[in-house]
């Protein structure tokens, strides 16, 4: 049964799920669990990430009848998870801190690498460089983290990111640009 449902398209799975096919819902969770978990983890950190991922899917199940025909299941699931994470961050009292990104803008884009520790250049080729960069992602404001995560996850389109985050297309591009430059600063600053 699992093998059978895993081959179905998202639209077919949603239709079956609405018809009360539990295996179809299991297949949906199985298909998107890692991506939703990754987004949640990037937005709220490790703590409660699994529980929030589960809650996102439970909400999706309850709201499945409201999913309009033609809407992208993936985008819809991400939006549910995104909203859930924002609520969680607000509860933790951290949302304001991480969303205060409008005030910044004048990033200092000096070629800092030349002045940074010589070690950094050598460490670029180290095997755990990627892991260290990902650790620095957690230092970014939540909107930047979210945009970056969605962008690099299956290379989501700008339009999809805008829909998930509920922001204009131009803002997505600005967020991504600023996020990468801010991350660069963090990487240089940390010396890795």
């Amino acid at each position, binding site marked *: 049964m699992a093998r059978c449902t895993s081959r179905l398209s998202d639209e077919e799975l949603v239709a079956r799920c609405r018809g009360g096919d539990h295996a179809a819902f299991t297949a949906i969770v199985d298909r998107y669990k890692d991506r939703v978990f990754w987004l949640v983890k990037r937005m709220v950190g490790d703590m409660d990430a699994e529980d929030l991922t589960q809650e996102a899917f439970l909400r999706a199940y309850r709201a499945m009848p409201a999913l309009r025909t033609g809407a992208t299941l993936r985008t819809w699931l991400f939006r549910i998870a995104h909203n859930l994470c924002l609520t969680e961050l607000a509860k933790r009292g951290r949302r304001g801190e991480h969303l205060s990104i409008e005030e910044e803008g004048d990033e200092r884009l000096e070629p800092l690498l030349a002045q940074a520790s010589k070690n950094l250049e050598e460490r670029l080729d180290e095997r755990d*460089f990627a892991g260290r960069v990902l650790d620095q992602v957690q230092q970014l404001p939540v909107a930047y983290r979210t945009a970056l995560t969605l962008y690099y996850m299956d290379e989501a389109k700008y339009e999809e990111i805008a829909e998930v985050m509920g922001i204009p297309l131009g803002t997505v591009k600005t967020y991504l640009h600023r996020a990468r430059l801010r991350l660069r600063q963090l990487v240089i600053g940390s010396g890795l």
Partner: protein
Amino acid sequence: MNCRDFIELIDRQISGLATRTELEELKQHLAGCPACKAEFRLQTRIHQALAEPMPRALPGDFAERVSRRAVAEARRQASARRLGYLLPIFATASLVVLAIVYRADIAGALAPLFGAIGERLSYMIAWMGAGASEATRTLGSTRGLPAGSATAVLAQTIRIWASALVAIAAIGWALFWAYAFLRK
């Protein structure tokens, strides 16, 4: 363009937003600027790090667990909705039946109770208006209740309503077990 502009341009190149002219300009600059060349390498490595595949971190039975929970929740909510409609109807019907069964007792119990309250109110009003002695003379002595009547009325009322509450609790208990049975 200076090096600061080229840092921006490297990001645009990585994002696939740079034009062909900009790319050519960047290529020429990188050939003669070691700092920007290092910058280009750094940004490319960050881009590659971000694009690395997601690690699998959730347990293998995650989908099964979530699905089971979702279905169980949906069933529970459906039962609760059914019960939510039934319970007030059943409670109202029970009260109506009880009121019919005990109508004689209820009427008998309430009449003296309201009578007693009325008597005491009249006495208080007369007391406030004419003074205690006059009130006692005009109301208390002529239309006063027999001794202990208020206690008897209260006891009778409590007995009736207590039996009604016990009946409602019994019905509620039966409904709870019926609901628990349906959930299985």
